[in-house]
């Protein structure tokens, strides 16, 4: 019995050092040398300023400026609206504002819940209000699900191709660009399925918006 206890204590300390300290350090070393960009989160800089991570979705909403020239507040939170110059990410329900990447969370909206229905209706209405002026034929039946449903992580960096193509009409109008140019950018930043069948094509919103900004600067 005593021998078993001594062996167990030695074993747990030894394995903690090996698997809990040495192993993660070795992997970190390999990662930092071989794939430094990925290991550190695919950071994106513009003019030397960190604007986000390629992997992590972000909000492209902006504060609503009130009549007094200051951002409007409601219940101590700044009221925001979609910035029409940018492609919009999927709705997000993280705590402390949309796309809070320091606290990922599920929305946990149940399939038979009235609250889910209300959230869906609200998101659908907002999407139609924003895009309909630029897409006269747009109806609820043509709105893709990713535009109204929150994602799992609530940090989804991607939208569907259908969603992007609808928003392209707005971007082209607001930025005075040919629609073909915007559509070309969309396909440039679309990741295809893995090994032909796995997953869905996905359009990276941050990369797409950065490309739009570069277009203007060029």
């Amino acid at each position, binding site marked *: 019995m005593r021998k078993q206890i001594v062996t*167990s204590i030695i074993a*747990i300390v030894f394995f903690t050092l090996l698997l809990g300290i040495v*192993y993660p350090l070795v*992997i970190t070393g390999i990662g930092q040398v071989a794939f430094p960009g990925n290991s550190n989160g695919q950071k994106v800089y513009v003019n030397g300023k*960190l604007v*986000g991570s390629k992997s992590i979705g972000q909000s492209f909403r902006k504060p609503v400026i009130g009549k007094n020239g200051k951002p409007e507040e409601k219940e101590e939170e700044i009221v925001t609206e979609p910035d029409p110059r940018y492609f919009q990410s999927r709705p997000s329900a993280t705590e402390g504002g949309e796309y809070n990447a320091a606290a990922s969370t599920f929305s946990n909206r149940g399939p038979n819940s009235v609250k889910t229905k209300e959230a869906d209706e609200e998101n659908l209405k907002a999407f139609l209000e924003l895009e309909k002026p630029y897409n006269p034929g747009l109806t609820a039946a043509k709105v893709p699900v990713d535009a109204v449903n*929150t994602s799992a992580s609530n*940090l989804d960096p991607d939208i569907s191709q259908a969603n992007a193509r609808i928003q392209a009409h707005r971007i082209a109008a607001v930025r005075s660009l040919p629609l073909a140019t915007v559509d070309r950018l969309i396909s440039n930043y679309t990741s295809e*399925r893995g090994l032909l069948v*796995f997953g869905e094509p996905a359009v990276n919103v941050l990369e797409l918006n950065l490309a739009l900004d570069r277009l203007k600067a060029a």
Partner: protein
Amino acid sequence: MTFSGWATIFAFAIILSALAWPLGQYMAKVYTGQRVFLSPIFAGPERFIYRILRVDPESAQDWKQYAKSLVIFSLAGWLLLYLILRTQTLWDFTGLNPQHFKSGTWDLSFNTTSSFLTNTNWQFYSGETTLSYFSQMAGLTVQNWLSAGVGIVVAVALVRGIIGRSGKSIGNFWHDLVRTILYVLAPITVVGAIVLISQGVIQNFAGYLTAHTLTGATQSIAMGPTASQLAIKMLGTNGGGFFNVNSAHPFENPTAFTNLFEMLLVLIIPAALIFMYGRMTGNRRQGYAIYGVVMFMFLGACIVAYIAEAHGSPAQHAAGIHTGVISGSGGGNLEGKEQRFGIAGSAIFNVVTTVTSCGAVNSALESYTGIGGAVPFANLSASEVIFGGVGTGMYSILLYVLLAVFIGGLMVGRTPEWLGKKLEAKEIKLAGLAILITPLAALFCTAMGVATSAGTKSISEGAAPAGGGHAPQGFSETFYAYLSQANNNGSAFAGYTGYIQPNAGNAGAHGITFANLLGGFDMLVARYGPILFTLAVAGALAGKRFTPAGLGTMRTDNTTFSVLLIGVIILVGALTFFPALLLGPIVQGLTGHLY
């Protein structure tokens, strides 16, 4: 539904089988002490570890000694992990707590420690808002390895008991554990971690980033040594996410390819163990028969989940959302699912992680449709024999095989025999107990959870109907929580919480002691109970004389027996839970009514 969705299911099954078969042959060599191609690398370190531990790897243990080593080692691991979580701030000097998180509370630490020791990885905590990098590495990652190792060695011991020709030995715990870690887990984990980083999983010790977004807002982005924990979390069917949203987080599962890769990591060892069993017992046909049985049930689960999720939810339809496929969008119930995985990639991932004891999720189970959500329920209700956790799945299905042989023997009026061993009352009693502990723990805890006011505090606000009272979703959440913990799975209808809601940031929030303790109890009982009874079965079988199969022996490697085995699993496993399933997910699946 789309062509690529259906192709996903079958392509995955084929890739998995092609990879698992050679691994199974390799593992059979590892556990029979033969040389393998990694021996030149690991033989030296292996001897070195035995010297440090001061054990003789060749000394034979009977089942009681084996169990004693396992239990004492687990207890030591429990104490150390609990200590690390409770003293998180003490380790700040290492610089591995850049966000300065406080130490865990006693009740939550009890739950988390029990959770990682038992390979459950149920998470009442949120990774990126409560745990330091030190706790994740030195605490949780270590148990990700060890709990997987412990599960595998129990399966190996049972197989040894079955093939033992004489005597009482079922091997040596330390020998099996060290060989599992070095020869099986380590090579795949290290390669896996590097592949994951190459695809965009992060691995660093930096503090959280502050980004200035294009529209002028600031965004804080969590960092950490993710890949090293992720690789063993999947391979060891542990499932505890580095981040709160687990494998839905873009840093923890960045692409459609990593989604596939992670699914393969989860199932590769459970699938390989079945082939290993066939080879070690010298009856490969029986290995294939068992593989066929679990693959059949696995594919069934995938198909049902995919169809249900592709159909969309009642809430979506009531809101006027079109859930069909349109050009450029796969449609379906995308609430709580990531665009890059789509419906099929999400549904199959969750089948993969709920048939095993993994419990990682890449989409929000709480948001699955009634029937889509009933699939994980059914998987758990079958006591995780459909591949199952590393080791646990193997020994669980072997107990079911034993039961099926017994029932089959009774039906045709012959003495039940299995691989040359006569089955008698003692083994059947022990196997019965091993099988029944898990459902008992799950149902007892669910009853406590829904019948007490301390228990219902854990139900999420979203699951309660607007006008007060109770809704099926609340019952589903509770039932799933204790079913998942009893099966050492760890996936969750994540609205169910160990904190008073809203659980902003978790740290320092008001914990629900009741749920933490009940869950911890649930996990410990349902893990160590079956392990001890399984080792006892191994011991009982090891001591039996071998009698060659005669004309009167019922065959256990043909289709008839496979069908009988499926029947026994469904009868014993699933029907135990049927009344409870009716009250939750099935009600939700059969109605378009909103609550």
